[in-house]
């Protein structure tokens, strides 16, 4: 009987029965990540129902509840799909995906796009709206990851500029909608990808200087809509006057403070019941959690995010190649930044921008895009041995 090495046996196993092999991708699904995502989505659906069902117990309105559940289910299917095919294949489509995304961002600015709350960010398909800028986050992640994964050594300045360009064009298109929040997410994703991709410290400083200059010019020029400068100014000095933004931030903090340690109880938050926090089911969803579930619930939610991000970071560490590690880092950056901003603005520590809380805020595009991103992370992790 021939003695075969472990390596040989491993190869043999794979040939004979790929599904039962200990290295088969499906054996390495990250259950904790999936559970954390499912937990957050559940909290989100519960919070959305609480703030949108209305006051009349005889006839609660379940419209948003049903829609968000549908988005979650759809998002889960997309996630499975994103995890299913070998992620390395994505490299072939990176340019195409990016191109389609840019096209969508251009078209949405035209007559086909729909304007909501002063921003032309949506396509309408019957009862559903699609926000291409949400999906383009993923296109940027894949494109930049693909571009940077091609170079093993430190990045040269032209490569850095090329990478910045990949982020900048969609960023500018999104600013034209105008949607500053999403543009800032793009910038942050790009920054993190460059960081992981091997940017040098002096290059970071250079880029930072440019970004600060541009942002300062933007705030002081008329490029931003009045409500956006208001939001930023309000954050800088809340005592300048009772503006809409100050009101919003004030009401958000009252809601969260009102929750106290244990919360007012599900469906019992007075700020939530009275609808005093504007945009509560979307960008300000965290105020529902804060008011009704209190510090305990808020901390648990943040804990789920921490778990999710930890698992993503681990997937990046374990990734078989630089492409995979960069994809995971991009998704990490996307979720971390959105979480920090969307929670931070309800707590009064970051300016108000229209950024959804990933997996929790109401909105199909955001939920599905985030779940696709997580699917990619699962994909990278489970294919680490192949």
């Amino acid at each position, binding site marked *: 009987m021939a003695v075969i090495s472990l390596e040989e046996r491993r190869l043999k196993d794979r040939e004979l029965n790929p599904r039962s092999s200990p290295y088969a991708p499906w054996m390495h699904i990250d259950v904790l990540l999936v559970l954390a995502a499912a937990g957050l989505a559940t909290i989100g659906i519960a919070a959305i129902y609480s703030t949108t069902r209305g*006051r009349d117990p005889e006839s609660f309105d379940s419209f948003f509840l049903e829609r968000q559940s549908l988005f979650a289910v759809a998002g889960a299917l997309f996630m499975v799909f994103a995890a299913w095919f070998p992620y390395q294949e994505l490299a072939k489509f990176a340019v195409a995906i990016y191109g389609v995304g840019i096209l969508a961002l251009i078209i949405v600015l035209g007559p086909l796009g729909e304007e909501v709350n002063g921003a032309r960010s949506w396509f309408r398909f019957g009862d559903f709206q699609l926000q291409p800028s949400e999906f383009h986050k993923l296109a940027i992640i894949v494109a930049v990851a693909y571009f940077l994964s091609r170079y*093993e*050594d*430190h990045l040269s300045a032209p490569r850095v500029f090329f990478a910045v360009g990949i982020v900048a064009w969609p960023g500018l298109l999104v600013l034209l909608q105008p949607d500053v929040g999403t543009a800032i997410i793009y910038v942050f994703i790009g920054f*993190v990808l460059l*960081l*992981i991709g*091997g940017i040098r410290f002096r290059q970071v400083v250079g880029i930072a200087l440019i970004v600060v200059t541009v942002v300062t010019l933007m705030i002081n020029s008329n490029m931003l809509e009045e409500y956006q400068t208001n939001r930023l100014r309000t954050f800088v000095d809340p005592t300048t006057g009772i503006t809409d933004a100050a009101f919003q931030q004030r*009401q958000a*903090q*009252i*809601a*969260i*403070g*009102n*929750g*106290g*340690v244990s919360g007012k109880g599900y469906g019992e938050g*007075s*700020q939530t*019941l*009275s*609808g*005093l926090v*504007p945009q509560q089911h979307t960008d300000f969803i965290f105020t529902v959690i*804060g008011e009704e579930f*209190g*510090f305990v619930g*808020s*901390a648990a939610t*943040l804990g789920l*995010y*921490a778990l999710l*991000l930890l698992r993503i*970071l681990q997937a*990046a*560490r374990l990734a078989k190649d*630089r492409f995979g*590690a960069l994809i995971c*880092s991009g998704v*990490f*950056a996307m979720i*971390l930044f959105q*979480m*920090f901003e969307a*929670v*931070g603005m309800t*707590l*009064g*520590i970051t300016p108000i921008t229209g950024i959804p809380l990933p997996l929790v805020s109401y909105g199909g595009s955001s939920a599905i895009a985030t779940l696709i991103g997580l699917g990619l992370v699962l994909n990278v992790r489970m294919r680490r041995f192949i």
Partner: protein
Amino acid sequence: MTPESLRLRLSFLALLALLAFGVLAARLWFLQVMSSEEFENIAVANTIRVIYEPAPRGRVFDRNGNVLVDNRESLVVTVDRFTYDTEFDEGEKEDLVLRLATEISRTGRLTKIFEINDALDDPRYGPLDSVPVADDVTENFEIVLAERADEFPGVGTDIRSVRTYPYGDLAAHILGYVSLLSEEQYELVADDPKTYRRNDEIGQTGIEASFESVLRGTPGFTRLEVDNVGDPVAVLDQVDPIAGADVHLTLDIDIQALAEKELLAGLAEARQQELDDPNDLPFKAPGGALVVLDPKGSEILAMASFPTYSPSEFVHGFSEERWAQLQDPNNHQPLHNRALAGIYPPGSTFKLFTAYAAMNSGVIGERGVLDVRTLYEDTGTYVVPSCEEDVIASCTFRNAEEAIYGPVDLRRAITVSSDVYFYYLGDTMDRADRFDREGIQRSAQLFGFGAPSGIALPGEGTGRVPSPSAAEAAGEPWRTGDSIVLAIGQGLLGATPLQLANGYAAFANGGTLYAPKMVVEVVNPVTGEVLQAFADRVLDQIYLPRSIRQPILEGLLGVTAELEGTAHSAFFGFPHEEWPVAGKTGTAEVVGQADNSLFAAFGPNPNPEYVVVAIMEESGFGASVAAPAVRRVLEPIATNSVPAVRTIDDLAELSGTIGDDGDEVDAENTELESAA
């Protein structure tokens, strides 16, 4: 790039995430654990709106059930401040106010532009309140508003309950007035269970102030839960307003009307007196007081003070100039209630209490310097024995008008008002070791001088009873001359008209000093249930045996009834037989002014039911001004013919009979009519 470098860079991401979570968790801890109580309070206030419904204020009645203070509805024009402030620029604001003033005036209530602007600037109203800018508008304005609402955005009407005074200005000082709370007052009542708001009214003087807690109703409220635009979504609870309780006074409005009329007439007469000597100080007679009370319990039947004011003026509020006028000393402070806050030397009306002191301390008596019937020779002057010029400024004291009364006993000394007789009593008590040096002071205090009488009205004066011990304590000299002038009610002695009347009441009723009583009971306006009844309040029992009371009483009876009595001419023709009146004139000297004219009286003797005291400033002799006025008050009482005041016509007739001060009378008449 090496795998190690990638790991390092991923670790940097982990650090970034750790930092982000740290910041969020710290802030969450601050909001939800450290300051959640504060936010919970805000959240409660955020969703609850309280709508107050004011409660009607209690009414005030006289002893016979006549309504003295009532409520009526006033139609008020309001401007919604939020609309006004947010929807108009300066020009539009000016235009709106101009059109509003024009339109309100056109419908019958004269309204000036600055009145509306002042109201709109009133800091007592919040930025979301509806501010009342004109009251007592006619219903025609409501019609205008209904037809042309779009021309007056934010303008509305409201019904407000305001005070009305069926008897016009009568008893204004007793009833007092209500007006908007001041900031200081708001602080004081902020925790009151009857929930005051910044634009509420509060009793400022008189019964309105001292019975504020009773008269004020408890406002009702509706607590609404509201949504983010302030629309109610649910009624949390609702409490109906509870009307304030009614207050029933001891006052008799008929006697009050009579007292006010005669006080005014007396002052008018005083001004018309001719001066004996052109160099004498003029009789300005700017003010005075007249008090009528029942000595059996010191129930106040009437209490007049002049000059007076119109409480209904406060219903609309008034200009700063008008307020300044009311405060100006040159206008003799119409808001000042002289009857209980004015402090006057009582003059010879005080001799009753000196006489009591002398008898009680033994100066007059079997072992005293005089017996009751001992005749003392009044030579017109009293020279203090062994007086040294350098110790006492003047050793010689004279009778008023340099009169010489010859032999006088106590009874006659009172009847003719012999100052010399009383100088002797004062001097004896001051210097003779075997008598109480402060006998007069003790007597004065027994009869209630030098202390607030305890009437249930604000602003009462204390008065002054000077004494050797007090002077020594203050490091000031006390001279025999001080005791001598004290004996005739002069010097530093000061008493309110009410104190004087109450002291006479204690003598008249046989020695019981009561706290003057103004309020009989407090009654629930709906059920008629008596919520609070006020019994007579005895402050002191004064030792007043017949042996002391009778000689003094005889002297006082002589004042009005005997030919040589100082008030004989004033009471000539008075029904003395059926209704014997005891009285005492007083002519009190005040430095730099004409004398104050005083008269104190009680009757019918021997069981008096009425005490009347009149004090008229700068009016001359008590006998010639105050005594006739008191007689004119007592005679209708004695003959049971006090004119009943029941209608506004009665009032107009009453004030119409007061002749000389044309303008004032006209003004008052107008005020009465508008109050109707």
